[in-house]
């Protein structure tokens, strides 16, 4: 990170609240972070922690009804929060694009895949039919789809999950976005395919000089692929910092629990994975204090009554939200 690289994405005190029949549901609360050009940041957390909502709020894709968004999201200088759909449309695809979670549902089942890619090129970049088709085939080749000229006319149902996710990526890349939001891009795929897709994303990020927000529940996915990491719990950032710092010197017990629950190559085989006890909290009825307190073995009365603020740790850019942080000596655990 050179000091002169500018912030492509600035998220400041971002909150997303859903109005449900049972009351207000704070899906994302007071999230702030920045992302520089060419950087990849990871967002991790269990399902229900607000990662997907955060990604969609950053992009401004949430439907307008029954949703309240506060705070600020600047993408390449454009304020997303409060912008109308037609305004946002000018930035979607070209400034910011998204790779969706489930390739089985994110492609239009009755539209040929080639058409789904070159539609973007023709509508957004005003390309002619022929050049859009040529570029779409190029993109299909770029994301590693064999015999892309023939596959151009295939329907999504004729492709495997991994191939479909490559098509989704090709569609997202069609207008060379500066920022790519990848929302659990490998959840629905086989393990071997997962690695291929993630490597493809990393490769493309470098080749096309994109910034990437990589959202996942799997810490193994982000370990080597991101420079910084955000850990979310119950809609809040509970720990943020450089990826290696988080792995080596995490302070928040929740981060530890996440690490313990994900398989690691360094462990001998058949090591028991530790499940996080309890369940994620009901967002409609959050505790007053730390949301993780009910599941935390270190919790004190203060944890239950007072919400911990994000506090800086010893490393630069590393903060955590915890009243009883783990001692710094935990570094020995990661080797």
């Amino acid at each position, binding site marked *: 990170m050179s000091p002169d690289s500018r912030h492509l994405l600035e998220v400041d005190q971002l909150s997303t609240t859903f109005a449900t029949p049972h009351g207000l*549901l704070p*899906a994302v609360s007071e999230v702030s972070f920045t992302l520089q050009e060419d950087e990849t940041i990871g967002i991790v957390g269990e399902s229900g922690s607000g990662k*997907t909502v955060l990604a969609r709020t950053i992009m401004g894709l949430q439907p307008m009804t029954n949703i309240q968004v506060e705070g600020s999201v600047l993408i390449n200088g454009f304020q997303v929060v409060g912008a109308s759909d037609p305004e946002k449309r000018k930035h979607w695809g070209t400034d910011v694009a998204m790779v969706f979670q489930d390739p089985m549902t994110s492609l239009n089942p009755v539209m040929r895949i080639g058409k789904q890619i070159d539609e973007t090129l023709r509508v957004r970049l005003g390309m002619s039919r022929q050049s859009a088709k040529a570029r779409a085939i190029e993109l299909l080749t770029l994301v590693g789809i064999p015999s892309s000229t023939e596959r151009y006319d295939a329907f999504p149902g004729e492709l495997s999950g991994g191939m479909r996710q490559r098509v989704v990526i090709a569609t997202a890349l069609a207008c060379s976005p500066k920022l790519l939001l990848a929302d659990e891009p490998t959840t629905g795929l086989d393990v071997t395919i997962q690695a291929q897709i993630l490597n493809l994303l990393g490769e493309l990020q470098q080749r096309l000089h994109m910034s990437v927000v990589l959202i996942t529940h799997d810490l193994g996915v982000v370990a080597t692929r991101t420079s910084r990491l955000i850990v979310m719990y119950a809609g809040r950032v509970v720990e943020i910092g450089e990826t290696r710092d988080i792995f080596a010197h995490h302070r928040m017990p929740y981060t530890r629990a996440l690490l313990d629950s994900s398989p690691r190559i360094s462990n001998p085989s058949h090591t028991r994975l530790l499940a996080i006890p309890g369940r994620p909290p009901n967002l409609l009825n959050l505790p007053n204090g730390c949301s993780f307190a009910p599941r935390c073995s270190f919790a004190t009365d203060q944890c239950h009554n007072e919400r911990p603020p994000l506090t800086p740790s010893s490393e630069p850019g590393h903060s955590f939200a915890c009243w009883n942080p783990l001692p710094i000596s935990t570094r020995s655990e990661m080797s």
Partner: protein
Amino acid sequence: MTDLLAVEPLEAKTPLGPLFWACVAWLSLNVLAAILANLLPLQDPLFQNYSALNAGPSLHHLLGTDDLGRDIFSRIVFGSRISILVGIGAMFIGFGIGAPLGMLTAYRRGKFDHIVTTMMYVLLAFPAIIAVIAVLSFWTPRSILKIIIVIGAASIPLVYRVVRAASLSVATRDFVTAAKVQGASSLRILLREILPNITPIMVSFLLIGIASVVTLEGALAFLGLSVNPPTPSWGNMINESRTVLAQNPWLVLFPSLALCLFLLSLNFIGDRLRTYFDVSEVKL
């Protein structure tokens, strides 16, 4: 959006609403009037008052008279008997045969289910009204019983389809499997486990079915293929009105209104019940 689904909102049951009860009241009023028509202080629906032909509404004739001087109000009340009788009678046949068959095939599955279902879908392929007209035009002389039998028979495939689909979604649930494992007899499972669970949708479909039958009978009567005049029915009153449309618009307006309100009440109650019991997975 798995993140959103993590918090499953419990769907609160919305109350049935005042309009629902208004429809129930209107329907009950119709049925009561039809049953008690003879006891009510109504004029003779067949009596021809030659001093008041095509008269408008008045105190003596609340809704006016037709071209033969017969009281429209009384004819509407007596006419409702035909509609209600045919509606209930035909659905009695339709459900009497279609429902047990649908439950049985959904529970048994296999070859029997396959054959019956294919047959029913073949029968569903063309509109009931054509088959009904065809049979009624040959099976002479026409009578209300024949009309009920023909429409009832024509409704069997429709009832069958709905009941089978509803039973199918119940028959695969855990409590049915549990009952089977405990060694309950098939008859007991059908009557104790499946039937209570499909009753809401059957009731809802029954009401909508009656509405369809009443519409069909109305069309037949309009075409002169239902009960013979002078017996009044809503359909043949509208039919008779067409020759005197210009002189006596009341003659078409009142029976039409009676028929439409009756149908609307049935459809509304059926529809509300369907959403109330939330059986959206079974399409009517």
